[in-house]
């Protein structure tokens, strides 16, 4: 009996060991997954103002919608804008960057955020006494798993980094040049019918970003205003050209119209103006209509002539018959 008990115990422990070994193997073979989730930066843009030598503080937020707590790496980068649609491009070499802000910002390097939680990030910006008046720009981005390097993958592939961030605009007070030009304001010279699309470009020559807003006023061939179209060009980075567009949703017109662009920008009462002329006239429709009318008139005239000719022939026949009758009667 003791021998039987011993072998039963042995079998039991072997079974348990086998089960645990299988479990460990299963766990080891199960693919390890990063937390899949949305990350949110609050707010997308942060506008601040400070005097040279002043320190300002602000609170940002980052939200983690993954099902587990994540450690976010916080990066502060200068950025510039070079294209016409306003893409912020991070720049790593900021020594020559007149718009640099990165080196003035103090922010934590890492921050843990609970699952489905929001974390507040306190930043401070210390403006040096020598800080140039005007705009200074940086982006603060949050990236989960920022400590993982491509070599950690141990297989051919790409590690994908997911970053979302806040654009920080700091205006350092002082004498600030505010100037801008309309580089382009155009539409097609001739439109048979609407809508009429306007396209434009504005060059910001200021020490700070500008946000031109205003209207395109449309005047009819009789010089009466027929429409005001709202225009918001959005923020334009200093020394950058940015495109804007607007649409006049008018289908039909009857001549040469005038479009006046009036945009206000900056804090010094700057105004951007431009004037263009364009035709809105349904030329083909008018030509087709005229051709149709002329054709109808020609048909009417031809029918009329034919009718007259026919009548004349009948009258001629009648007169000939009369003559013949008279001749017969005379005989």
């Amino acid at each position: 009996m003791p021998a039987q008990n011993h072998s039963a115990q042995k079998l039991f422990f072997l079974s348990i060991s086998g089960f645990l070994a299988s479990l460990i193997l299963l766990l080891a073979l199960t693919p390890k997954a990063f937390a899949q989730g949305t990350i949110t930066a609050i707010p997308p843009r942060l506008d601040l103002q400070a005097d040279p030598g002043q320190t300002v503080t602000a609170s940002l937020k980052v939200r983690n919608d993954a099902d587990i707590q994540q450690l976010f790496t916080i990066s502060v980068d200068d950025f510039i804008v070079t294209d016409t649609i306003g893409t912020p491009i991070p720049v790593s070499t900021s020594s020559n960057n007149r718009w640099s802000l990165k080196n003035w910002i103090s922010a934590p390097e890492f921050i843990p955020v609970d699952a489905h939680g929001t974390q507040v990030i306190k930043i401070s910006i210390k403006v040096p006494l020598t800080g140039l008046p005007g705009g200074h720009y940086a982006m603060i981005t949050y990236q989960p798993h920022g400590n993982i390097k491509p070599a950690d993958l141990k297989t051919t592939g790409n590690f994908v980094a997911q970053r979302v961030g806040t654009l920080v605009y700091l205006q350092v007070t002082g004498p600030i040049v505010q100037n801008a030009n309309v580089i382009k304001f155009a539409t097609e010279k001739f439109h048979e019918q609407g809508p009429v699309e306007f396209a434009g470009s504005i060059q910001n020559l200021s020490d700070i970003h500008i946000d031109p807003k205003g209207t395109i006023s449309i005047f009819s061939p009789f010089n009466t205003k027929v429409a005001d179209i709202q225009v918001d060009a959005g923020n334009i980075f200093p020394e950058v050209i940015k495109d804007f567009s607007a649409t006049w949703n008018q289908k039909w017109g009857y001549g040469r119209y005038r479009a006046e662009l009036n945009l206000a920008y900056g804090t010094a009462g700057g105004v951007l103006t431009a004037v263009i002329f364009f035709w809105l006239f349904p030329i083909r429709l008018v030509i087709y209509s005229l051709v149709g009318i002329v054709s109808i008139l020609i048909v009417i005239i031809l029918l009329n002539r034919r009718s007259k000719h026919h009548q004349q022939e009948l009258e001629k026949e009648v007169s000939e018959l009369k003559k013949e009758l008279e001749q017969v009667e005379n005989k």
Partner: protein
Amino acid sequence: MKRIIYFGSLIGLVVGFVLLLEPTKGKADLTIVSDTLSTSRLSVAGRVLTISGNLVTLNPAAATNFNSTSTANMKSGDAITINGVAQTVSAINSTSANQFTTVAAAPSGSPGNPIYYLSEPVHQINFVTSTSVPNGFFRVLIPASLTVNNNDNVPDPDGFDFNGVTTANATASATANFSFVSALEGATASGGTNCTAGYHCFEFHYTGTGPSGSAITLWIGNLAKSLIAPAPASGHNLGVADAYTIKVQQFANGVNPSSTSPIDQTNSKIALIENVRITATVDPSISFSINGMPNSVTACGVTTTINTQTANNAPLTVPFGSLVLNTFATAAHTLVVSTNATNGYIVTAIENDHMGKDGGTTPFIPDTTCNTGTCTTATAANWDVAAAHPGFGYSLESVSGATVPFTAGANFSAKPFANASLLQPPTTIMSSTGVSNSHTANVCYRISVDATQAAGDYENQVTYTATATF
């Protein structure tokens, strides 16, 4: 004696039985009486403690006729008066129970100056008649203050203020047999002609047979003007309603209601309480997610061969694994962006370097130049022939709302990623010029190697950054 008691009892029983059978006159009640207020919100009658610019502090101590001691019954947008000057509440201080701000700078006021908000509910009074009264009239009595002026257009602590209401502000619904005569309507403030002090009186005269069992609806007040609801009563507790009793009466034609008992009368209760202020803040935000895709699904017009959804370290990897020479391996991610930022968002992409052996710099899998060697980070070109065109690149496909700079088309139009080690700027892969709700785009990765590629694991990092547009 016994006979006297016996007959007396018998006579008493008979008389009582007869009286029981006799129909009661003038004692019936109007039924299903209700007074529904368009708002049950109390008015506000408080006092200034301090004023500093736009910040007003309400006196937290009650005083005679001024029992509003907190901002619990106020909300942004309320039209109020401070010491008789019209103001609009812009915000209620969320941390202090008795502070609020005004849109315009508040007048310099001294402690004790009155702050009023007028709540002017419309009374909708419903009931069913019990007695047939031809050519009669209904009278509604609304409680009024007996202690303060009840017709001075400011809230009273113990009744409705008359607020100069006229018959133009009262109406009745005509029904069959009840033709209401507007010329005979009456609206009299408490203590006026034929209106006993303590109630404001409203008369609705009608012609017709006025049968019993008729449903009647009367309105006192309209959008133009209504009685002013009471302010909190003395000793009022926050969140506890102040109750008032209204009376609805029916009279015969031509009688003086102040000296004649009504044919029918029923009382009804109304209760007024602080409003519940509900607040919510929507932060400006930008949200970004990267989602993996399984293999054998179509993205960018091709079938994926790599799983980025459940593979190791998914979804933030593209695990191409072992590559077959001169054969494409294809994977994809779905990028989703939502933002309420004006002027939209931009997502840029950049790789840290070529895909280098063991994450190093050399040897490496080159970035693709596509079929004809013409595609660059700025220009897309077709890349659907793997042999003799090794490299790593990507293509795009807008799924919902997103603007992408190029799309795969029928021949997998592709580009190489911008390369940070070559100091190339990140390139835009999806964008929008307005607010977006779950804008979605697919990024499709493709790789091919030839026989000259040294054996080993090749890796790099692709970074996607989502921000608002400048």
